[in-house]
C-alpha cells in the first residue's frame, strides 16, 4: 500500500515590484515637501529636514534609555493584557452563563475614552510605572478578550465533537483544541493593536510620567523645539513599522502550517 505524496508547497505571495518601492517614493516626496515648506515658512513652524536629521542624531540618540523604557513598558503591558484578555475571552467563550456579564464589562470598557483612563490613573496611582501599566492594560485588554471570544465562537463544532469522542477532560480540550485554535486570533489582535498601543503609551507618558518617549516629547514641546518633536515622530513611525514586522515574523514562524492556506 503506497500512496503518492504531494510534496510541493505553494509559494508565498510577494508584493509586485512597483508596490515594493511605493513606500520609499512616498517618504522621499515627504522630505521634498518639508524642504519646500521650510523655505517659505518660518523655521519654528516648518524646520528643514537637515535640522530634523541633526536632532535625530544629536538629541534623540543619547536618549536611548527613554526609548528602551518605553519599549519595555509596552512589552510588559502588552504581554499582561494578552494574558488577562485571553483569559477573559476564554471565560466568555467557554462559560455561557458568565458571557453576558463579562461582555458587558468589556463593552463598557471599550466605550471609556483613553483620556479618561489617563486622568483617572493619575488620581489612582502615584507611581508613574503603575499609571502607565494600568492605562495600557485597560485600553488593550478588551481587544484580546473580544478577539478570543469570537475565536471560540468560530471554532468548528466538528473538531470539538471529534476531540470529545476520546473523552478528554476540560483542561485537555483547552490545551489540545481551544488554545491552538485561538492562537492565530491572538496574533491577529496583536498585529492590529500594537500600533494603537504604541500611540497610547506615548500619550500616557506625556500625561503621567517623567521619563520615556512621551515625556521627552513633552519636554521638547516646552522648549519650542519642533525639529526634535518631528524627529521623535519620524522615529515612532519607523518603530511602528518595525514592530508590525516583528509580530508578523513571529506569527509566520509559529503558525507556519497556515502559510499555504492563506494563499488560497
Amino acid at each position, binding site marked *: 500500500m503506497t500512496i503518492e505524496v504531494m510534496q510541493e*508547497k505553494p509559494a508565498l505571495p510577494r508584493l509586485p515590484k512597483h508596490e515594493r518601492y511605493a513606500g520609499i517614493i512616498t517618504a522621499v516626496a515627504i522630505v521634498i515637501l518639508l524642504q519646500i515648506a521650510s523655505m517659505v515658512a518660518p523655521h519654528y513652524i516648518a524646520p528643514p529636514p537637515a535640522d530634523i536629521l541633526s536632532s535625530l542624531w544629536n538629541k534623540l540618540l543619547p536618549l536611548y534609555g527613554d526609548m528602551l523604557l518605553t519599549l519595555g513598558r509596552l512589552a510588559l503591558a502588552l504581554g499582561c493584557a494578552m494574558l488577562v484578555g485571553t483569559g477573559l475571552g476564554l471565560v466568555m467563550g467557554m462559560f455561557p452563563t458568565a458571557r453576558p456579564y463579562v461582555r458587558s464589562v468589556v463593552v463598557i470598557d471599550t466605550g471609556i475614552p483613553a483620556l479618561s483612563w489617563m486622568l483617572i490613573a493619575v488620581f489612582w496611582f502615584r507611581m508613574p510605572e503603575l499609571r502607565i501599566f494600568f492605562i495600557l492594560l485597560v485600553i488593550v485588554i478588551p481587544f484580546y478578550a473580544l478577539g478570543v471570544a469570537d475565536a471560540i465562537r468560530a471554532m468548528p463544532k466538528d473538531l470539538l*465533537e471529534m*476531540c470529545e*469522542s*476520546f473523552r*478528554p477532560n476540560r483542561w485537555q480540550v483547552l490545551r489540545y483544541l481551544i488554545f*491552538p485554535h485561538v492562537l492565530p486570533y491572538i496574533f491577529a489582535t496583536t498585529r492590529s493593536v500594537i500600533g494603537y498601543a504604541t500611540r497610547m503609551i506615548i500619550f500616557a507618558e506625556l500625561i503621567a510620567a517623567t521619563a520615556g518617549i512621551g515625556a521627552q516629547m513633552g519636554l521638547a514641546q516646552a522648549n519650542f523645539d519642533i525639529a526634535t518633536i518631528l524627529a521623535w515622530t519620524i522615529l515612532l513611525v519607523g518603530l511602528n513599522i518595525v514592530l508590525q514586522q516583528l509580530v508578523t515574523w513571529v506569527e509566520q514562524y509559529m*503558525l507556519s502550517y497556515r502559510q499555504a*492556506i492563506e494563499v488560497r
Partner: protein
Amino acid sequence: MQTALMKTAMVQTDLPAIQLQQVGVTFGDVVAIQNLSFAVERGEIVSFLGRTGAGKSTALNLIMGNLAPTRGEVRVMGIDPKAEFQQLRRVIAVGFQTDRLMPWRTALENVELGLQILHEEKTATRKKATEWLARVGLERAANLYPHELSGGMRQRVSLARALAIDPEILLLDECFSQLDHVTSQVLRADISRLIRELRKTCLFVTHRIDDAIEMADRILVFGAPAKLLLEHHPTEADRNDPAAFKVLHDLIAEKLGIVE
C-alpha cells in the same frame, strides 16, 4: 489505572458490547428514533443501512454518549455512555464522515491526539502513531499538514487516529461516503481487513448497500424514524456469488424504498 481495572471487570461479564433497549429520541416535534432495540456482540461487525434522515447518526450519538435517549436505555459494555462518560475512555473510538483533522497538526501529530488524551507516555505515543500511519500506508506523509494531503489520505489519517488508541469498539459514520468511488473502495477494503485482523467490535453506518454486504457480519436496515426493517447475516455466498449478491442487494433496496 481506573480504566484498566474497569476493563478487566467488564471483560469477565458477558454483556454485549452495545445494547439499546426500547430507545426513543425526539428533538422537539421531530421523532428521530421511534422504538429501537438491538445489541452488538463483542467482535461483531454490524452495518447500519438507511436513507438520509433515518436516524443513524442519532443512534451513533447515543452510543458515543453525546446524547441521552428520551426513552429507553443505552448501554456500552454495560455502562451508560452519557451518564458515565469518562468511564468509556479508550473503549470507544469514532471515525466521522469528514476527516476532522486539526489543521495545525501534521498527519503524525493528528494520529497522536487520542493517545495524548489518554495520557500515554510521549515516546510510546510517537511510536504507536508512527506504526498506525504506516498501517494505513502513509508513513511518508507523517510530517505533512492536512492541507497537503488528498481527501483519501486525510480520511486514512483520521481512521489511524481512531484505531491508534486500540479501542474495543469502533464506530464509523459514513466515513467513506465523501470519497470518490475508487478511493473509497480501496480504503474500505484496507480498513475492513484491519478491523477483522484486530477483532474489533465495529458498528458502521453507510447508505451504500455494497459496503454493508461486503464488510458486515450483520446488516441492520433502518427506516425512518429509526425502526428496524430488516436484519440479515450476509454469508460468504452473498459476497462471492454474483447472483446471491444481487438478490440480497435488491431485497435491501426494496426495503429502503430505492427502486432501481
